[in-house]
């Protein structure tokens, strides 16, 4: 089976898991059939005799060692180095919707910088009544809000335009995370500086930049800036991680991750877009005729089956099977997800774990019975605007294959009778 996989370890892990599961399966099967008693039950185990760790064994806890493979991974050939680079969330191994910060993907343009709260300053200038400087402590004195939002890199699934390329949901769809943010609405801060001098706001923009060497400046139209953007300093209840912009980052709900400026240091009200590097040479989408779309900010509805998937094969044989995945839309809430087992010939409506929330990840399940035959697994998301996630062929028909960004196509996993899965394209 291993010759089908590049990831030696993918197959090795699959094999290990498979054999472990098979062994355990044999044992449990035996126990269930009143064969050999299970020594895990009949023998007194060391953990039931001795003592465990004391309360301060790990003042800030990490996952137990048995989960050490659930980590961010990088695709080395994608970028020149790891400093201006990206890695991927292990979505194949997570469940629920909240992404733990420690395994949430990272994207830096000049590395994750060390910036203390005491050294942090946020400037608002440009077309405002009074240019202001805030300290971190100032930010904590404005009224705060809490919101859960997904952050997806515009290049998520970008390596798949020309064909099935990376073998794992982590690598095809892992440039995404979903956290509960605490912060101050961007609107509150801009209003604090005053917009009277800006005049008509319809043609005004807000330029945001970070404190790192890349600064990653982006121009945001005023409507969005005064809408749901958040200047956030906590994620999932605790301080942002360094790699996600500690101490303060911008949250731009539903819009491409590049705009979520980390280490945000300056907010400027301008009379037009700056046309920075990140909004001209990058994050623009080239169409088949050579013209390129710009200002493609919204992340369209998308979904993926996270398990079974190449890094999460079926190890239990036929019978009850949970098919699960994630769905999201930058336009609003997910209303429905369909799953196909035959490459899109027939579809079933999946169960949403919770009602979809606007611009946040939604978990779906299809609780099914596997007959042990091969499957071509797909999922298809719909959001509350009525948008239906397209196939890759539909996307290519409109855009060609050179867009790089905003690939929200339906993904196919080919699950074989041995339970292994592979990233494929189907007709």
């Amino acid at each position, binding site marked *: 089976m291993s010759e089908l996989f590049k*990831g030696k*370890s993918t197959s*090795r892990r699959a094999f290990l898991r498979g054999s472990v599961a098979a062994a355990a399966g044999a044992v449990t099967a035996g126990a269930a059939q009143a064969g050999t008693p299970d020594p895990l039950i009949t023998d007194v185990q060391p953990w039931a005799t001795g003592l465990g760790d004391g309360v301060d064994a790990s003042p800030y806890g990490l996952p137990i060692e048995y989960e*050490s493979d659930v980590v961010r*991974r*990088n*695709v*080395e050939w994608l970028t*020149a180095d790891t*400093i*201006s680079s990206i890695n991927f969330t292990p979505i194949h191994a997570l469940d629920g919707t909240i992404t733990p910060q420690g395994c949430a993907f990272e994207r830096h343009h*000049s*590395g994750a910088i060390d910036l203390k709260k005491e050294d942090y300053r946020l*400037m*608002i200038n440009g077309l405002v009544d*009074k240019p*202001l400087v805030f300290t971190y402590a*100032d930010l904590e*004195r404005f009224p705060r809000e809490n919101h859960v939002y997904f952050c997806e890199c515009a290049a998520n699934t970008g390596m798949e335009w020309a064909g*099935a390329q*990376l*073998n794992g949901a982590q690598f095809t769809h892992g440039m995404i995370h979903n956290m509960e943010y605490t912060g101050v609405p961007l*609107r509150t801060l801009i*209003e*604090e500086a*005053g917009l*009277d001098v800006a005049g008509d*706001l*319809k043609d005004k923009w807000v330029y945001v930049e970070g404190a790192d*060497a890349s*600064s990653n400046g982006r121009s945001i139209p005023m409507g969005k800036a005064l809408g749901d953007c958040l200047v956030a300093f906590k994620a999932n209840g605790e301080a942002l991680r360094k790699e996600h912009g500690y101490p303060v980052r911008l949250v731009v709900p539903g819009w491409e991750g590049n705009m979520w400026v980390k280490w945000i240091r300056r907010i400027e009200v*301008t009379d037009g877009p*700056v*046309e*920075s*590097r990140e909004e*001209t040479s990058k994050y623009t989408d*080239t169409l088949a005729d*050579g*013209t*390129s*779309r*710009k*200002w*493609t900010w919204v992340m*369209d509805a998308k979904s993926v089956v996270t398990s079974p998937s*190449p890094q999460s094969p079926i190890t239990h044989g036929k019978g009850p099977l949970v098919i699960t995945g994630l769905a999201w839309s930058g336009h609003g809430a997910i209303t429905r997800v369909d799953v196909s087992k035959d490459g899109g010939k*027939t579809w079933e409506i999946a169960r949403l774990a919770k009602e979809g929330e606007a611009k946040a990840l939604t978990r779906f399940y299809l609780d099914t019975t596997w007959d042990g035959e091969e499957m*071509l697994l797909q999922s298809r998301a*719909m959001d509350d605007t009525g948008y*239906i996630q*397209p196939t890759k062929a*539909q996307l290519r028909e*409109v855009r060609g*294959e*050179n867009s790089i960004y905003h690939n929200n196509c339906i993904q196919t996993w080919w699950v074989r009778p041995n339970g292994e899965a592979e990233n*494929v*394209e*189907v*007709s």
Partner: protein
Amino acid sequence: MSKFLKFTLVAGIAVSATATAVWSGEYGLGREALPEEIAAWDVKIMPDGRGLPEGSGDVWTGDEVFAEHCAVCHGDFAEGIGNWPKLAGGQGTLDRKDPLKTVGSYWPHLSTVWDYVNRSMPFGNAQSLTPDDVYAITAYILYSNNLVEDDFVLSHENFAEFEMPNADGFIVDDRAETEYAIWHGEPCMENCKDSVEITMRAAVLDVTPDEEGTETEAAAPAAEAEPVEAAATETSPEPAVGPDPELVAAGEKVFRKCKACHQVGEGAKNRVGPQLNGVVGRAAGAVDGFKYSSALEGMAGDGLVWDNESLAAFLADPRGFMKGTRMAFAGLRSDEDIAAIAAYLSTFGE
């Protein structure tokens, strides 16, 4: 929007009634930004050239400045080295398979080049260039794209006149019309296709990272940590034998300036610069598989060894110490930083 305007109006009245003549927002938090502070941070250049400082630079100066600061990654002719960005070429490729997007073939505004070079380049030493350097580099990038002649001089005065070849190559997001209108309605649930064939497989392409290496690496530190510690206690009874841990820690921070080009530690590989494991005490130019500059090879031939003294001299002034070195690094100004780097590097053996 109107609601918002009303709100500020109300807030404004409230403020003028209660506060002095000085503007104050609803919360009165923060303080006024000083002109010097705004000047220091607001360095953006608008597409029409607003924000450019006075200055100028010509192609030939640009050639030199580029060779010194940029060529190590972008190549002498802006052609790009390895996976680092290519800045020149690609005209006429945007509608082909794998288009080559460069400043010349793709970037719609010259202001973007100036702005980005000025604020973010060179990689690892941002904001170190003078305005004239940036004008010169920008002029040279235009020249390497065959967009200007070799006698071209770029300045704040002629900047706005320059039109980029792909300036008209962009349209505003039109997904609402071209896509959303189509991918809508009640989706097909049954008999949606006659047949389904697998047309492409990721395993055939074989580009997925191998997870095995990462796993071994992750497991290794735990396994190795103890023996190393044990060895240290056995063989170094005197505490002052190794480098000062504080100095090493400081050096690790300073090394961030070097990381863009140099790797060190387990699995370190040659990148733009050679890997640096065991560099302290080693003969110069001795890393296998790295193509050194002839300047370095020359000094290596003369017996240069990287000890604390030579490293310090090189790091203080790379190009002064070694004329013709490819290391595009301005040098470390502080002796403490140099000592810290040397201490840090000395902790990595071959």
